[in-house]
């Protein structure tokens, strides 16, 4: 088990490495990658039962990044965990790379489900949790959703399925950064109150600060205690967290930094060029 301080250090490194990949590709999604980084690092380093030396181990925990565009953070986390060498992050979005623009389970070690088309990953995660129950498998399924993604109808179809099957082995985490490509989620198509919506669909909900690692750990521990219900953790986050000029700016949803911006961002994150 890592200390909170150690996890914070890993998260800083993950942000730096994720941004290196995006910069090298001159393409990708830094905003949503940075909002979800602390959640991913907490899960992979202190919560999930996974082992990069046996990535397909039966009964392991699984993670579906349903907001697949935030994969730079997932790739950097997986690399840090030991699934593949961190240097490979520089191949992100380039031809012949295992690190596709959106996660591809056929290619990238450690990716449990190919995602990219919003909403489907969550529904697939529900399917995994159902299968896990049928098989008597002890693994948990974690699904990470964007708040804008909640505008997809399939999310609510899947939410009802999860409640019907009493999937207490499924934990959804909503990366609530309140921004999407066309602007503020509340303006584009309001999804709040997220916790109340999921509760109305038969879930239990927990709120937390998605950048407070101890808070995330507490929320996950509480979620795992709840039986007979799927649990959603609504994590309040900031898009572009960690880099001042990207923070809470919708414009950084799907844009790569130029050399100058890259240098500034690395300086803020404490990395070297």
């Amino acid at each position, binding site marked *: 088990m890592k200390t909170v301080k150690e996890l914070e250090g890993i998260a800083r490194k993950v942000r730096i490495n994720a941004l290196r990949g995006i910069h090298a590709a001159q393409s990708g999604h830094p905003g949503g990658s940075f909002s979800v980084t602390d959640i991913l690092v907490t899960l992979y380093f202190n919560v999930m039962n996974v082992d990069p030396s046996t990535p397909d181990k039966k009964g392991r925990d699984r993670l579906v990044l349903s907001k697949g565009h935030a994969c730079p953070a997932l790739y950097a986390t997986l690399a840090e965990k030991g699934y593949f060498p961190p240097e490979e992050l520089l191949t992100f979005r380039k031809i012949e790379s295992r690190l596709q623009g959106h996660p591809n389970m056929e290619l990238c070690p450690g990716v449990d489900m190919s995602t990219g088309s919003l909403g489907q990953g969550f529904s697939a995660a529900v399917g995994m949790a159902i299968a896990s129950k049928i098989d008597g498998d002890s693994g948990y399924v974690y699904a990470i959703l964007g708040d804008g993604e909640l505008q997809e109808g399939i999310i609510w179809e899947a939410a009802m*399925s999860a409640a019907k099957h009493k999937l207490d082995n499924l934990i959804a985490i909503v990366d609530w950064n309140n921004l999407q490509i066309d602007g503020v989620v509340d303006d584009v198509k309001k999804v709040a109150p997220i916790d109340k919506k999921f509760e109305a669909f038969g879930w239990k909900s927990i709120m937390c600060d998605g950048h407070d690692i101890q808070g995330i750990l507490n929320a996950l521990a509480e979620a795992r205690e709840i039986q007979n219900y799927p649990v959603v953790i609504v994590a309040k986050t900031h898009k572009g967290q960690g880099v001042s000029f990207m923070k809470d700016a919708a414009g950084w949803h799907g844009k790569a930094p130029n050399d100058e911006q890259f240098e500034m961002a690395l300086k803020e994150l404490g990395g070297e060029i």
Partner: protein
Amino acid sequence: MAEVKKKIATREAYGQFLVEYGSAREDLIVMSADLSGSNKTDGFEKAYPERFIEVGISEQDMLAEAAGIAHMGHVVAASSFAMFAAGRGYEVIRNSIAHTKANVKVCATHGGISVGEDGASHQTFEDIALMRVIPDMIVVNPADALSTKILLKQIFDAEGSAYVRLGRSGVPILYGEDEALEIGKANTIREGTDAAVIATGLMVSEALEAAEILSSEGISVKVVDMHTIKPLDEEAIVASVKECGAVVTAEEHSIIGGLGGAVSETLARNYPCKVAMVGQNDTFGESGKPADLMKKYGMTANDIVAAVKSLI
């Protein structure tokens, strides 16, 4: 060839197959989106309730969940009407099932105009076209109940994603139980020399009837059951034209993008020639009795007879 008299819907055969196959394959999961009676998955539900998943009226969720279940080590049969499985579900099948090579068999019933009274909203002529443009997708459209069982066994025994189109209405039994049918291999069901009719699904029996009619007029017609639209037996198509000189396609589907399209693409690349197509002519359907609709929209033995005559 068995004597043509008994009519059974291919969806009935699917339901029976699931119950039989489910006893041998404990990893088989069957999913329904509120149509278990219509899809004939209710027999499996009774026999193996713990392996039957009722998703409710949410086809997209059923299909993405199916991918998740398959990636946990199961083989999954997911069913709805063809309109909603292939139509509404297209993008889920493409991205979450086929692209991830999920071991999911989308078994869609009520394909085509033989749905009848439900009308245009429930009659799909686009499903085969939608499914066959997806890379690596197996696309199968059986002609009768017995070939449905034989082909389903092969589809479920193999790993990977597949789309099977099944019908609502009863169709004549054309095959015996131990027929040597093979996925990806066209089956010549009647030999002939003047023209070849390449048919799929319930149009195979119409093609046989057309061959009988033409035979009485001295025209010898070969009938090919193209039960597998993908991978397409290109060799059989080219050989049929070389042998007979004229080719007619027959399908209960739009002539755009379906069997007619697939056969034409093959011939354009390998052996350019004129092709006559019997199928839905770029129009929506309507309510009515299946037989009346098949007649009005030009998908009967007589339409095949006319198409053959237009070429020879």
